[in-house]
């Protein structure tokens, strides 16, 4: 059922969310493959001359008690029971695969966004200036006196080449998005109308 839903949403825009979901759930289901991902942690407080100690071992839940984990036992035979009564043993598990996947994916998304941001703010105006020269740059009306990099130079580009329909539409979509972000930026940062 879950896979049907995944495929259903895959056929529609927003497929990146579903692929993220799919891979994450698959990773979650394959935890425990690493034996280092489970452990039993026993904390034993000070007892007579013995100091407080912490013992860790990669054992499963049924072996998670003082006798299996505390090794070597610091007290002799008759004191073992009294010592073990004070110890508190907790079973913990984690999924190292999930952690690795999540952190690496997050860093790559962050990296992509940073690259795109650097491109938008620094490289694109430079490239446009080199391609078309200063005289042909068309500034949109709202950008007068503004340092925004979203200058509308794509009109120049579109007039000089004939292209397929898809590229045209993609460009228009991107232009629409930029205009929207500019509007949002004006409302939030300049006019302080929303989200002050």
């Amino acid at each position, binding site marked *: 059922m879950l896979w049907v839903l995944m495929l259903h949403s895959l056929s529609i*825009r927003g497929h990146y969310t579903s692929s993220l979901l799919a891979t*994450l759930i698959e990773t979650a289901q394959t935890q425990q493959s690493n034996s*280092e991902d489970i452990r039993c942690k026993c904390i034993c407080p000070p007892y007579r001359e013995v100091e407080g100690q912490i013992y860790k071992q990669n054992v499963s839940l049924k072996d998670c008690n003082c006798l299996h984990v505390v090794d070597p036992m610091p007290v002799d035979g008759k004191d073992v029971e009294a010592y073990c009564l004070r110890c508190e043993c907790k079973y913990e598990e984690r999924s190292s695969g999930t952690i690795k996947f999540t952190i690496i994916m997050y860093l790559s998304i962050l990296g992509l966004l940073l690259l795109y941001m650097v491109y938008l703010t620094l490289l694109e105006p430079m490239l446009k200036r080199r391609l078309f020269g200063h005289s042909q740059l068309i500034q949109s009306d709202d950008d007068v006196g503004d340092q925004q990099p979203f200058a509308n130079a794509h009109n120049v580009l579109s007039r000089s080449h004939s292209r397929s329909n898809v590229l045209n539409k993609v460009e228009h979509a991107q232009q*629409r998005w930029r205009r929207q972000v500019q509007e949002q930026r004006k409302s939030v*940062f300049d006019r302080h109308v929303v989200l002050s």
Partner: protein
Amino acid sequence: MSLYYFYLSYFLLKSSNFMILFLNSYHVSLCVSAATPTEEMNGAGNLMDFLDEPFPDVSTYEDFHTIDWLREKSRDTDRHRKITSKSKESLWELIKSLLDAWSGWVVMLLIGLLSGTLAGVIDLAVDWMTDLKEGVCLSAFWYSHEQCCWTSNETTFDDRDKCPQWQKWAELMTGHAEGAGAYVLNYFLYILWALLFSFLAVSLVRVFAPYACGSGIPEIKTILSGFIIRGYLGKWTLLIKTVTLVLAVSSGLSLGKEGPLVHVACCCGNLFCSLFSKYSKNEGKRREVLSAAAAAGVSVAFGAPIGGVLFSLEEVSYYFPLKTLWRSFFAALVAAFTLRSINPFGNSRLVLFYVEYHTPWYMAELVPFILLGVFGGLWGTLFIRANIAWCRRRKTTQLGKYPVLEVIAVTGITALLAYPNPYTRRSTSELISELFNDCGALESSQLCDYVNNPNMSRPVDDIPDRPAGPGVYNALWQLTLALIFKIVITIFTFGMKIPSGLFIPSMAVGAIAGRIVGIAVEQMAYHHHDWIIFKNWCRPGADCVTPGLYAMVGAAACLGGVTRMTVSLVVIMFELTGGLEYIVPLMAAAVTSKWVADAFGKEGIYESHILLNGYPYLDVRDEFTHRTLATDVMRPRRNDPPLAVLTQDSTTVEDVETLIKDTDYNGFPVVVSRESERLIGFVQRRDLTLAIKNARQKQDGVVSSSVVYFTEDAPQLPASNPQPLKLRRILNLSPFTVTDHTPMETVVDIFRKLGLRQCLVTRSGRLLGIITKKDVLRHMAQMMNQDPESIMFN
């Protein structure tokens, strides 16, 4: 060569467009469909469809306007009736009607899955990046400190946090682990990392999604009451908010992630709404989904599914029918389940500070609990007033022109002052976790440095009868400094241009105050155990005072003082801690803090921000008790130009266009004629504009002097006149009317309960004027001696 360079740079420019191919699909409008009206369940058009600019439908709304709840409800009823009647025709139609009924639950399932996943990702990334400020794990760089030392073999208490795989930066760079040089280097690198994270966060917000800043809850409250903010719940906002939330929390600023997680969950809700036309085309139904999504957001933020549903009911939602209650419950459940299966904390708990003690509390302890409640109320008032004053200053003066500098400055100051104090150096969640936890044998922190009598026969963790050691007094000093620091810095942090929540900082302030009071009471009980109250209460050998409980109660009091939550707060707190015995102290503190805070000002932090921004939010809790009438509020007033109306069959297209151009009213009443002024209906400005534009393009024969008529049959005109234009289908034949002597109390009630945008005022059947929601809000503000001009939107 130059040609090659030309093509290379051209290719670079073009290839960037494909990066945003799928993300930019429906950015222009959220509730407009580019597909045909007969589209049913899935909007799976081909690639070209969603790249087109969507053609605005007649029944959509403009940005920053209020929706018409009644119209949305009636459209949904129509749709449902059509589907039900068609379902009897064939088996396929029956299946389609069943799928339509189930689509709500499918949306909830998807929302729960995505919110849980995103919350898990955020938790893991925050955990790692917070530790990155101090050091790095050498064996696997993606592990945080605790994860890195998971399999280490250090066995003594003192070395419990050290392991050779994880090294601080100074140790890595210079090889020295201790000493003044290492301390200064660690300090410097801590500040550097914090500045880097916050700079990245504010840059990303500024460049990609300016709506991703702030908490999000005031705007979501307004959206759920019927306001439209396009792009606020969009895909880019979702992506940027998730990414920058991690950066903002990791930079050590005094903010939390709960409020932004509600925004993230609502963005997920909006994302999945666009899959089904039942929700994407109907703004009223969409808001039902968003209410449930908000519940899922709180559920994963706190690990409190039921608290999440109650939070959505009490704080966020405007209309909350029973159906939304069940759907919210399901969404919160799925989200909690997904988060648990990702298991970010390695011990099957959903939240970092899950505590499990069950020590009883005593009746006499209600006195310090109520004192903590008073503290929470006072702090809430102080915080709200100071924060609103600072935000107003940011809005109106030069401070608002430098958002990036402001963020960097606040981060720098926070990092500079937070590093020396061990209680503020670590993340706020860890601080709260330590303060909530009772001292047992496991604790080695300074707070649990009690003097142990070596001749005691009882086990060590029987605390109450022990005097505090020097470590505890040291910790008390540090905690007091931390308290003052947190109180001051949170005022300047909340509201900056990065995602920021305030649940965790408020709980931290309360927890610190509570723990201090708890230790004070405990020591008083030890040193003066011969006083009457303590004699009955603290018997030797019995657990007497649990400072961790005081910390919990303090956290609840402060959070209640700031947000004015009651039931949802208590439920969240006892779901956080699992202590059902402590409901009564939590309730006592929450009630006290709400009373004290309400004595100084009625609005919580979210309502105050709504007032600051001037959103058209008609609060259901306000009571209107003045004796004004509808005539006092309606427009036009005595000196205003007369009401702009359309007649039913004598206005021309040119007149209508002039009227639209000259005025900026959102709608026009339609009367029989200018002499009789009897009301026929109401027509919206947007519908009128679109219909006339449509008619000019599509229908031939329609010119500027064509007559516009709203009746069923065309008026009798000489044959030489151009073809008349019938606009009956955009006319609302049942506008709400009140008479001029209706008390404003009733009018406000009608606006609230029905979600109206405007209401017409008549006298003896003749149209007199109009009252809009903006007029109502301005009137209420005037009555409460606030500035009526601050209401900006309608």
